């Protein structure tokens, strides 16, 4: 097919295949968004009539969704706090210092990205079960932090590398103290990266399923675990509205990241910092 690349036919075939692949990637998402407003939540496409009923049902009395949403948001907020703090220090150590065994530390920090999540979840289960911490939001957040920290570190390392150290030296040469430099120079320059790291940590935790499932108890069920249970065991058509909300959260988060980065850098540095991280082969 590449052999045909200069011929019109080859180009058309390639374009058609590629567009089909894009449909393949986008279709499940579009379908859920549309279906969540259809009166027959699991049925025909496009829906015959429209309704907001599924969304109203989510917050009706006796609904189990608000509790799950609140738990997921709490866990995600804690995870964000932990992973940005750990990630910032790790990024500073990796970018701005002479670290002995630097590549070992870097490998350790990125390892959770490639180790099967079921193994991480099983290990955490074995750690928290004897401590009677199953079902504790803190335990779930500590687990999610293992997965979110590598992402925060990659984003923050890229951010720190992008800050010209000479600006700090210049401020220092003019008599600025360390705190002043951090507050007036480094932090404002790093802020967009910190916000991006926070947002990605938040969605990593908010969408995480396996660790939450292993560490959950009957009363602490996160949103993705609840969605999974509904899909596997009982049919609750309002799950489509939950799925649509999860999509909305992810899209808003990505939008925020790109706005913050644009405002911060004044230039378009690509939508996603993680994109360069992943595609740069940083994983291994």
């Amino acid at each position, binding site marked *: 097919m590449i052999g045909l690349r200069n011929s019109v036919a080859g180009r058309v075939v390639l374009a058609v295949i*590629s567009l089909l692949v894009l449909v393949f990637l986008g279709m499940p998402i579009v379908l859920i968004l549309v279906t969540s407003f259809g009166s027959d939540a699991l049925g025909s496409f496009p829906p015959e009539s429209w309704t907001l009923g599924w969304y109203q049902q989510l917050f009706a009395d006796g609904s189990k969704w608000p509790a799950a949403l609140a738990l997921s948001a709490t866990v995600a907020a804690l995870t964000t706090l932990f992973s940005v703090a750990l990630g910032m220090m790790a990024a500073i*150590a990796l970018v701005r*210092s002479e670290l002995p065994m630097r590549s070992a530390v870097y490998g350790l920090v990125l*390892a959770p990205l490639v180790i099967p999540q079921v193994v991480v979840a099983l290990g*955490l289960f074995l750690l928290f079960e004897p401590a009677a911490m199953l079902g504790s939001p803190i335990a779930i957040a500590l687990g999610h932090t293992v997965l979110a920290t590598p992402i925060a*570190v990659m984003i923050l390392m890229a951010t720190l590398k992008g800050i010209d150290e000479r600006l700090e030296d210049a401020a220092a040469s003019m008599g600025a103290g360390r705190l002043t430099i951090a507050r007036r120079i480094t932090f404002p320059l790093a802020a967009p990266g910190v916000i991006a790291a926070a947002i990605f940590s938040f969605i990593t935790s908010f969408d995480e399923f396996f660790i939450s499932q292993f560490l959950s108890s009957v009363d602490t069920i996160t949103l*993705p675990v609840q969605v*999974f249970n509904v899909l596997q065991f009982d049919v609750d058509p309002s799950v489509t509205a939950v799925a649509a909300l999860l999509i909305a959260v992810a899209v808003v988060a990505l939008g925020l990241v790109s706005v913050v980065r644009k405002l911060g850098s004044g230039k378009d540095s690509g939508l996603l910092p993680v994109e360069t991280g992943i595609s740069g*082969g940083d*994983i291994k």
Partner: protein
Amino acid sequence: MAVLAPPPEPVVAAATGGNPQGWRRRLSGRRTRFGLLNATPVVIYLLVLFIYPIFSTLLLSLKGEDGGFTLHWYADALSGTNLDILLITLRISAETSAISLVIGFLLAYWITRLRPIWAGLVMLVVVVPHFISALVRTYGWIILLGDHGLVNETLLALHVPGAPFQLLYNELGVVIGTTSVMLPYAVLLLYAVMRGVDRGLMAAAASMGAGRLVSFFRVYLPLVAPGLVNAGILSFILCLGYYLTPALMGGPKQTMVASLIDEQVMKNNQWNGASALGVILLLLTFAGLLLLRLVKSMSEAAKNRGAA
């Protein structure tokens, strides 16, 4: 946020004009201490919540019911239905990564030929789903592929013979689902490599009389091969431990190792057996990563030979 950079020593050193060697050593010691200080929390955190749990999994998988050493759990994991499940996992992962590679290759190649603005838009369609929960996308596929889902309705309307097809709760359904999850990885990795290929090389090959096929196989493919290997192995590894999509879109015959681990822990309270399965997954992952390393160093060696 208090300590963002090592204290600025250079000014003082320059002013005193002192011994530059000693100053450098002092500064480097400071920078090392500063690095250790900042690296310690994350290292301790991961040792306690990541490495230690994996080690306790390893220990548990080697511990017999009487507390002594045994390989019994591994024998269990590698025989009977458990072995079948492992083989199914390997097969589904191989199918997923092969399909992701082929269609990811086509899509990534197409993107490199687009104008930047279109390329940006298309990459958005690839990347945004990547950040949307895989659970949600799997649910979308379940609605799409059902007996009365959009896919079958469309096929019926087109009078495709044999429609409606069974697209869910079989291997086809699982592979469709896992491929849609792994594909963005493959496209991102391949696009990164393809973007770096110098088009001039292809033109040069053509000017020296190479046909399109020859210049594709002898020039283009070797240049993007590292990306192909990278994308193939990574999507294979990520698929091995994957749980959600197979659990929701597969039937009993598509049980994968992660589902088996989940079942052993949650239903059977069989932690030792689950640990052994986990360790096997881990070893397979390490094997994949090792292979990646090996291929990388081999291709670098080949490049160096070529240069010399």
